[in-house]
């Protein structure tokens, strides 16, 4: 069902094969996940609560270590020796912004990543201000991140990753708790970047607006993979995985969705 084929020969941005994982307390969350995402693709990862989406995403930059199977990023397998390089390439926005922000001020927090990449001085300051301006949080630059509202923290969390300019962006429900305008602005930012994007979301219209391709993860395995439009047009498939289009939503005519 792999609808969007990556051109033969080109190394995919993300490649996961036979990935299984159990948490230390014994709960198994992934049961053999296979996926391939080509360079520059924007892919939505859909699925019910508890499907294993966050668990999968945490493997993509080595925060969790595969119990079985392999993960590789731009051809580079994820293992202890390559972690540093992998984390340079993959920018991960966590589902909970509190997991992401830890410095005493927003400025230091956003500067943290680029500074680790060796950036200093004016260039660093510009990078930080740029990223914050993009998410509309420039005026909070000197406040402590844990004193922001939830949605503001989410926006700063996105900025911390944008500031690192990774070549692969992985976002775990980036639009939740954002107000509608910020949600649209985030979509515009993501569309304007020439990077590979994997976005976990429960917001199907948002997925449709932003990603041509979608994966459905359910019960720890990939249950469907294809163009978003086709998947969302299949009510039986959606219902099987606790997905449904929201109240008042009408699938817009083809050709329109954001390109």
């Amino acid at each position, binding site marked *: 069902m792999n609808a969007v084929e990556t051109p033969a020969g080109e190394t995919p941005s993300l490649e996961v094969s036979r990935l299984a994982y159990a948490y230390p307390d014994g709960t198994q969350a992934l049961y053999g996940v296979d996926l391939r995402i080509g360079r520059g693709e924007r892919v939505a990862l859909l699925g019910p609560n508890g499907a294993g989406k966050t668990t999968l995403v945490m493997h993509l930059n080595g925060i969790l270590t595969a119990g079985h199977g392999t993960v590789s990023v731009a051809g580079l397998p994820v293992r202890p020796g390559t972690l540093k390089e992998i984390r340079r390439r993959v920018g991960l926005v966590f589902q909970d912004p509190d997991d992401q922000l830890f410095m005493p001020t927003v400025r230091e927090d956003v500067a943290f990543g680029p500074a680790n990449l060796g950036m200093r001085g004016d260039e660093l300051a510009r990078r930080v201000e740029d990223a914050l301006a993009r998410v509309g949080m420039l005026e909070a630059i000197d406040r*402590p991140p844990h004193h922001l509202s939830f949605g503001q923290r989410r926006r700063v969390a996105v900025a911390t990753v944008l500031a690192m300019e990774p070549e692969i962006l992985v976002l775990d429900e980036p639009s939740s708790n954002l107000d509608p305008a910020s949600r649209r602005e985030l979509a515009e930012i993501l569309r304007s970047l020439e990077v590979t994007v994997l976005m976990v979301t429960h917001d199907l219209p948002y997925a449709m607006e932003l990603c041509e391709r979608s994966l459905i993860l359910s019960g720890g395995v990939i249950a469907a993979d294809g163009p978003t439009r086709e998947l969302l047009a299949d009510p039986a498939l959606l219902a099987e995985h606790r997905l449904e289009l929201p109240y008042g939503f009408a699938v817009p005519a083809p050709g329109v969705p954001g390109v």
Partner: protein
Amino acid sequence: MGAGHHHHIYRPGDTVVHRLPPQCKLPAVLGFAVVVVATPREMFAAFAGYALILAGVAAAARVPPWFVLRRMAVELPFVVFALALPVIGLGERVSFAGMSLSLEGLWAAWNILVKATLGVVASILLAATTEPRMLLLGAQRLRVPPLLVQIAMFMLRYMDVILDEMRRMRIARESRGFTARDVRHIPVIARSAGALFIRSYERGERVHLAMLSRGYGGSMPMISDLSASWRQWMLAGLLPVLALLVLGVL
């Protein structure tokens, strides 16, 4: 209340000792410690008797010896000190294996070592067989002032919160390309440690407020029935009473 991490000494189990209500175990252990401390240091046999009693408790609770031994590390500074006492101590000297040792120092070393060890083992057995929060509920039952119980409860909770926040912060740092390797990284850690205090506090504060908003009034609701039967009291009382018997008989 401790987010359920059992990173303390507690060893889950289902033995007679585990099942004893905490409000019985606390005074029993305290009583035992008092008897031990009050025993004159010359009464070797009594100490052997105490050790046997504790061994019995450990066996009944299925706490393996290696577990107790490992947890005894807290005692180490005192062991070092006690071992030094005969050498640095004053008083009459005897010569042993070519060393001149203070007789009084030897006695003092023995006294400290044996009493501290028995006390530590008794506490370890208590902590190994009782969940920290149950101990607190026990203390609440024993009418320890509620304010103290509450502070202790928040303290245990916060230890979990701090650990949890530390874990989150470490993951966040690492996922943005940071690994603490050498001293140059200390400032980074120090900067975020400043935030850690506030962050842990505020997280804990919000949780506390959430508890308040669900009707929390300063003490945990006793969902599980914590009442102790007189048989349980007798059983727990066995520990200090046996120790007293040992002291009296010998």
